[in-house]
């Protein structure tokens, strides 16, 4: 390894990670925009039979809110360089995100046990597809959370990773926003 020097033009004072994550969020938004468009297009057809919203989704929404709160806590800890706050915030944020995904699978079970199988109606298919796509993006976030948390707990005194924790927090808030919009779509149609 050699030390080299670096001096670069940057865009609007953003960091590399911020540009990467914000662009990724834009791409994910487009993905959900298309699936929402397809949903709104398809629901106008005669065979559309809306799915009753499983009560579990309300609990899951609460979990995701708590996950977001936890991550906001970790972010504030990173700003103040408070190792304890970061650790507690990360644990809350991560655990409630996992709870959310687990809760979503329980919601699917609730639906299937009432006979709302995936292939019976396009509304069912969309319900499973949309919730699964969102859950997959949360799982992707959990993978990143796992990596950052592991590093934080290993070398907490040396590296607090304020940027990584900040970006993780932004992604958590973003996932909550996407979920709230999707949940509203499912509730109102």
């Amino acid at each position, binding site marked *: *390894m*050699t*030390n*080299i*020097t*670096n*001096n*670069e*033009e*940057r*865009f609007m004072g*953003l*960091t*590399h990670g911020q*540009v*990467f994550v914000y*662009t*990724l969020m*834009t*791409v994910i938004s*487009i*993905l959900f*925009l*298309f*699936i929402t468009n*397809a949903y709104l*297009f*398809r629901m106008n*057809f*005669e*065979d*559309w039979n809306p799915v009753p919203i499983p009560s579990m989704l309300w609990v899951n929404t609460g979990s995701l809110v708590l996950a977001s709160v936890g991550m906001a806590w970790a972010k504030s800890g990173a700003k103040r360089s408070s190792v304890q706050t970061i650790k507690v915030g990360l644990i809350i944020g991560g655990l409630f995100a996992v709870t959310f995904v687990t809760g979503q699978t329980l919601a699917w079970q609730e639906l299937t046990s009432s006979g709302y199988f*995936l*292939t019976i109606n*396009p509304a069912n*298919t969309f319900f499973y*597809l949309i919730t699964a*796509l969102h859950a997959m993006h949360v799982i992707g976030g959990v993978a990143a959370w796992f990596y950052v948390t592991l590093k934080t707990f290993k070398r907490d005194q040396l590296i607090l990773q304020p940027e990584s924790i900040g970006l993780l927090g932004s992604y958590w808030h973003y996932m909550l926003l996407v979920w709230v919009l999707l949940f509203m779509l499912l509730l109102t149609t």
Partner: protein
Amino acid sequence: MEQGANYEGQPIHEPTGWWSRYVFSQDHKIIALQYISVALAIGLTGMFLSLMMRMQLGFPGLFESIDAGSYYQDVTMHGMIMVIYLLTALFLGGFGNYLIPLMLGSRDMAFPFVNMLSFWVYFLSVIILVSSFFVESGPTGAGWTLYPPQSILEGTPGGDGAGIILMLASLAVFIIAFTMGGLNYITTVLQSRAKGMTLMRMPLIIWCIFLATFLGLLAFPALLVGAIMLIFDRVLETSFFMPEIFKGGEVLDYGGGSPVLFQHLFWFFGHPEVYIIALPAFGIISELISCHARKNIFGYNMMVWALIAIAGIAFIVWAHHMYVAGMNPYLGFFFATTTLIIAIPTAIKVYNWVITLWDANIKMTVPMLYCLAFLITFLIGGLTGLFLGNVAVDVPLSDTYFVVGHFHMVMAVSPVLALYGGLYHWYPSVTGRMLDDTLGQIHFWITFVGTYLIYFPMHYIGFLGVPRRYYSNDQYDFIPQSVNDLNQFITICALIVGAAQFILLYNFVVSLYKGKEAGPNPWGACTLEWQALESPPGHGNWGEKLPVVYRWPYDYGLPGATADFVPQNVPDEQIT
């Protein structure tokens, strides 16, 4: 070379062994070569498939192995390979990876590990695609647009087997690879420019790759959504796109879906895809034309804004591919209007290239020949696009060979001409040696004249109303014998042009060992990739210190300067 001061230290990880240097390399230059190699290899496969199609059209029945099913498989795989796995991958993965860090004066991509992953995931998508040739029912033969319902039903080659699933899976994997690469290109362009390299000092090709990447990142999700939903319809028998279908008097399990929904999703991706390919080609031409005509590019700012306009409008023209899908005529009018409007920024670019050439010191190098050929070909392809953009003209010409002639001129031959120009231009930067000029000239003239002999007649065949996608013209009285004769002629030309591509490959290999030493800047270019300390540039590109940029990338024939070019990293006081 002038260097910057007050730098902050940053580590650079040298590869430690053969595997990390050449296989799982995180160096953008090696990743670029990996992309180029794989894309060219799969592109050769795509070319071979097109020759199979031409053999059937020119000499029907000559090869017994080509039946209707395999013909449609060849058509489908040829289209998909050329558009996605060759051109998109080569322009953005190949040229993008090689040029972005070097032209911007940075050490590497912003996230080298993600960049490496991007290539390997792309490679995986190619493997999945190629594996469909080896499954029982073969690859899908649904046409590159993969329209349901026929794409996932029995009767269409690969429709009831694994062919269509492998195609859709391969596309999904490709999109993941593209997203990883694309996020890197965006971050690097915005964040890793050398000091002084403002956005409006970036070479036009970087603008083009940057905007094409944005187009890809915003358009590919539409294809991903379509592909996932189509896999659901195929595997789980859901009905996103599948209407009620009777087969042999029997009702299938599908019902209520909309095939037109898939068309919208596909073309929302499909039309920007044209510009994902075209914009990097525009960029290559801008660089080459200025350098080989020894004159600064005309209207740089206007070129940038025209590119941004093209990228924006590219998202609101998609339904001109669907005029015959039964859309509301008012909607057709809207899309015809936007289609014609996109011709304005495109024309600005063409005029600017032509004005750049005006009164210039044009060097008839091989890259310049490709530039001139591109200008003519793109103009012709663009003009026939004006025909097809109008609903009233499109409806009778839809699904005829006129369309095949049009899109091959505008988005196959034109980008490939730019691509070849780019390969001849940057080969010395990659290898340190020049490509053989005579072989380059022979390759150029056969390719240029040959492609015209192939695609020009198709416009006339189209005017006669000969439908595209037909396996055989035998049983149609309205198709005269002259069409069959012309088809024979086209096939012979295609075989010659196909064979001529091996001249390029031969030139590549031989010049690597026997080519003339290129030296650091053989074309006398102003851009940074030619100003590295080492030629070819080593790991980290710039040695100890990054370059500093003092000027725009097209300072050719600067008044008061002795040399006819001033590189971007030379300050005013050092100009002699």
